[in-house]
């Protein structure tokens, strides 16, 4: 995993070129991660654009600052948690709930929808720990550095999240 790798490696490039390299390398994985988080592809794309543009502004103001993949996931996680909190405050339902019946065509798609519904039932911190470790492939220590907490806290949240996911998926099945 390129967690500690310094992106924008060629610092002779300007900020726009470095951000372009970042986008081509991380846009798909980051967008999928955010979509799992917010359960809405449109919001996920908006968040990913905001994250890359924030990276561009940061590189423009301080070209010598290293920009890691952890920074991208951290910014995306913060944006996604903020979005979920706003959504919960407004009392909005998941967009996934509306089209669940229409898209439930095969077993794989049904599993995706059930898993997404179970993930959406988690809290923001547990969801971030599960997605960073089991979906994005980070270790507990790397996820802890992204989330600004300890590795034991990440492990404990993963354990509790798995218990909730198992319960939700069992009820769905």
């Amino acid at each position, binding site marked *: 995993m390129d967690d500690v790798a310094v992106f924008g490696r060629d610092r002779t490039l300007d900020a*726009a070129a470095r*951000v*372009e390299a970042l*986008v*081509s390398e991380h*846009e*798909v994985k980051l*967008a*999928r991660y955010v*979509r799992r988080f917010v359960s809405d*592809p449109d919001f*996920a*794309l908006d968040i*990913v*654009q905001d994250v*890359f*543009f924030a990276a*561009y*502004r940061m590189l423009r103001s301080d070209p010598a600052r290293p920009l890691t993949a952890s920074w991208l996931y951290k910014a995306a996680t913060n944006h996604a948690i903020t979005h979920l909190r706003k959504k919960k405050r407004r009392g909005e339902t998941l967009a996934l709930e509306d089209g669940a019946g229409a898209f439930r065509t095969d077993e*794989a798609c049904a*599993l*995706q929808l059930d*898993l*997404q519904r179970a993930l959406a039932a988690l809290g923001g911190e547990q969801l971030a720990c*599960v997605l960073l*470790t*089991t*979906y994005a492939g980070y*270790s*507990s220590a790397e996820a802890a550095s992204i989330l600004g907490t300890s590795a*034991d806290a*990440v*492990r*404990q*949240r*993963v*354990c*509790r999240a*798995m*218990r909730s*996911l*198992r319960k939700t*998926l069992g009820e769905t099945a």
Partner: protein
Amino acid sequence: MSPHDRFEVLAGAVILGEANDLERAQFAAHAASCSRCGPAGDDADDVRAAVARARDAETWRPAVGDSVARRVRESGNSRFRSTVGVLGAAVALSLALNAVFASGLSSRLLGSFAPPPETFGSGASTMRIGLESPAPRPAANVPHAAVRVPSRLAQRGAGSRRAAASRFPAATLAAKRAPRPAANDAAAGIPDVLAGLDLDGSGGGDSRDVAFRPRRICGSAAPAEASRSETQPPPGPAEPCSAPTPALGEGIVRAEGVGDRRPRSQERDRPDEHDDDSR
């Protein structure tokens, strides 16, 4: 951290595949006897496998590169436009200011804000200095104005007078105490504002009050009682008068503290001053 919390951490490590053999053994021993922590690791592999399958089955390939590049370009253009706008506004403002100062319009504009000098000139021409005019008569119920001199200053003045008397002979003092000819002042056009004031204390009596206003007796102005004390009775019985008589002490300048001194007659009894006078 409770034992269950500690074993939740161990269960998380087992789920993520980060636990070593010792940790796995500890967790297995605890899960065998704990109904709460037992199922934690049982189905976790299934859930984790489901998440991994969902990740691998993803076919969504978003492309945000174009939109990010467009936002970057717009940001650069807006920054360039704002910079050019600010510079253009600064250049235009400097050109306008140069044109205003070069054409002399600024002095006219600034001059229009200054007050016209005729306003002050006319006021000065009509204002009269009232040195020669009498003092305004106070109202009947208004207490009389009095200028109070601090006692310390008055004592200092008395001390200086005694020192002067000890330094100069009596003839010189008498010459100094001689009244100045008013004709010279009048010829010079200088009003004698000190006339009638007992400045050196030679008026005699215990009081240092100085009266500068003549008393009106029966409608006619009596001679000015320059140094008469208000404690002394008037020289004769006052004639009945129908005109309003000003209250006693009206227009009196009272030197406070000077009256507390000993009378001059007692001061002259001092031996050193006798010596000075004899000299």
